[in-house]
């Protein structure tokens, strides 16, 4: 039985309104199914599943129901993931689609969410501190929160993170419990992992082959882009929520001796993952980076490089936060670079962009794009992608 506090009971009885009661019911029912002992307070929520291309009208109605039922955010920080279209209207969309998407944004705003429209909430003020309990959806952000920030969150479903935001509570289960955060397997990597594409391949390897919580050992470059690609790939190709990375994960030293199982891999092992993606040799018809979203600083650095070579010869898409300034987006367009504010190809209607072969540095994108959009993906690191964008004009 789940032990409920007085406040939990009051939520269920409807003291805080219909929506809050429904949200609490969702959380308590999951808690019961998981045999959780109790609910605990959270200080942050991040919600996925708000793109209409993912959730359809069904999802829109569900979110609107929570808003009209008086749902209000009850945590200090509550943010939301990318939507199905960029906010400046570069991507094709019908009037009806945008209307439907706008209803979601409006409902979330009414409830008190901060509509950053990004999968990297930790870049935009929702950056929980070491040891804090939070409820995040968005698999890549969950891995970042646990493995980099040292905050505690399970891989919550989008609607569960929403329910947690409206109640300020989540079930005490999984990696919220200290003993459940102990690593199970040491993964020694004999070669140095030094660019973001290799990092992504390590992440995909973990997702496919490693069960339980891994503790990495070896030379992994302390590069933010590499780290984000590694974590995002593991969350897409597998179901991990925590990976211990040397020099990165705050609790690494404390737990590193408790691992009993060990596995050694080399660069060659992770490169085998590439066989599952394929299409590496052909000419791409567009380039994409920003899965997870890239920070404004990196957007500017890439634009700088492309400006130097006189513009990209094929369409170059960069996905970033919905908060990026219109001015940057407009300047980029002149260079054949589409800065996608608040969306990304994964959650969009990519099939309508007329792209068949997309080059990217993201192993997370390499998981979803062929599956959701029937797009052929080829891989390169950022340096190679920029060179490809510039090549014919040199």
């Amino acid at each position, binding site marked *: 039985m789940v032990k409920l506090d007085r406040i939990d009971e009051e939520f269920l009885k409807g003291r805080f309104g219909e929506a809050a009661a429904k949200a609490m019911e*969702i959380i308590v*029912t*999951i808690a019961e*199914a*998981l045999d959780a002992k109790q609910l605990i307070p959270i200080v942050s929520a991040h919600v*996925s*599943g708000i793109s209409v291309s*993912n*959730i*359809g*009208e*069904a*999802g829109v109605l*569900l979110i609107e129901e929570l808003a009209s039922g008086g749902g209000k955010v009850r945590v200090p920080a509550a943010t939301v993931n990318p939507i199905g279209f960029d906010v400046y209207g570069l991507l094709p969309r019908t009037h009806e689609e945008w209307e439907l998407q706008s209803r979601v944004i409006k409902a979330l705003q009414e409830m008190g969410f901060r509509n950053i429209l990004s999968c990297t909430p930790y870049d935009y003020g929702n950056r929980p501190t070491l040891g804090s309990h939070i409820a995040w*959806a*968005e*698999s890549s952000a*969950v891995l970042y929160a646990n493995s980099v920030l040292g905050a505690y969150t*399970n*891989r*919550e*479903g*989008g*609607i*569960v*993170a929403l329910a947690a935001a409206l109640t300020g509570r989540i*079930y005490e*289960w*999984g990696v919220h419990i200290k003993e459940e955060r102990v690593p199970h397997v040491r993964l020694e990597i004999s070669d140095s992992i030094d660019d973001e594409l290799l990092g992504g391949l390590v992440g995909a390897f973990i*997702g496919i082959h490693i069960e339980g919580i891994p503790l990495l050992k070896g030379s992994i470059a302390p590069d933010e882009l590499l780290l984000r690609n590694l974590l995002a790939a593991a*969350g*897409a*190709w*597998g*179901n991990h929520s925590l990976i211990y990375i040397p020099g990165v994960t705050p609790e690494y030293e404390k737990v590193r001796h408790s691992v009993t199982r060990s596995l050694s891999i080399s660069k060659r092992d992770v490169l085998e993952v590439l066989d599952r993606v394929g299409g590496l040799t052909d000419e791409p018809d567009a380039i994409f980076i920003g899965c997870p979203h890239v920070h404004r600083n990196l957007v500017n650095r890439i634009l700088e490089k492309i400006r130097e070579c006189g513009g990209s010869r094929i369409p170059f898409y960069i996905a970033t936060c919905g908060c990026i300034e219109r001015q940057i987006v407009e300047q980029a367009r002149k260079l054949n670079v589409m800065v996608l504010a608040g969306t990304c190809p994964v959650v969009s209607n990519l099939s309508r962009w007329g792209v068949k072969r997309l080059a990217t540095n993201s192993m997370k994108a390499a*998981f*979803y794009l062929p*599956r*959701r959009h029937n797009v052929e993906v080829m891989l390169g690191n950022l340096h190679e992608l920029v060179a490809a964008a510039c090549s014919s004009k040199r």
Partner: protein
Amino acid sequence: MSSWRRLVRLKGRALIGGKATGRLYVVPKAVSFYGELEDLNLKNSVLVVRRTRGSTVAPYVIYRMWHEGRAPEAIIIVEKAEPMVIAGAILAGIPLCDMLTGISVTQLIDLNDCVANVSSLKESRVCDITIAC
């Protein structure tokens, strides 16, 4: 009229209660609802998945399938169910079981398309699955 060649009884852990009947649709590997199962029509099917992976959009995918009349009649996770699958089953009111005992994944593939009766009892936490081929 029909004579069953084979009758298989399996047990699991009941997560979301309910009774359902449908043809087994077996996915013998780790799979993401988002991107890998979302376009299927699983009406009149009992979905059996080894384990889930990938996106946290899963609950919406399940809910959307239900809303559009394409959701499975029951979901069975062979290993352990992730919370987000439980959330999807709650929203869509679909019986959900996990931790299946007494059968291997390879044996399950042989049962694809057989008719399954699922009885998921929340009180006792027992999920009984009877499969007739």
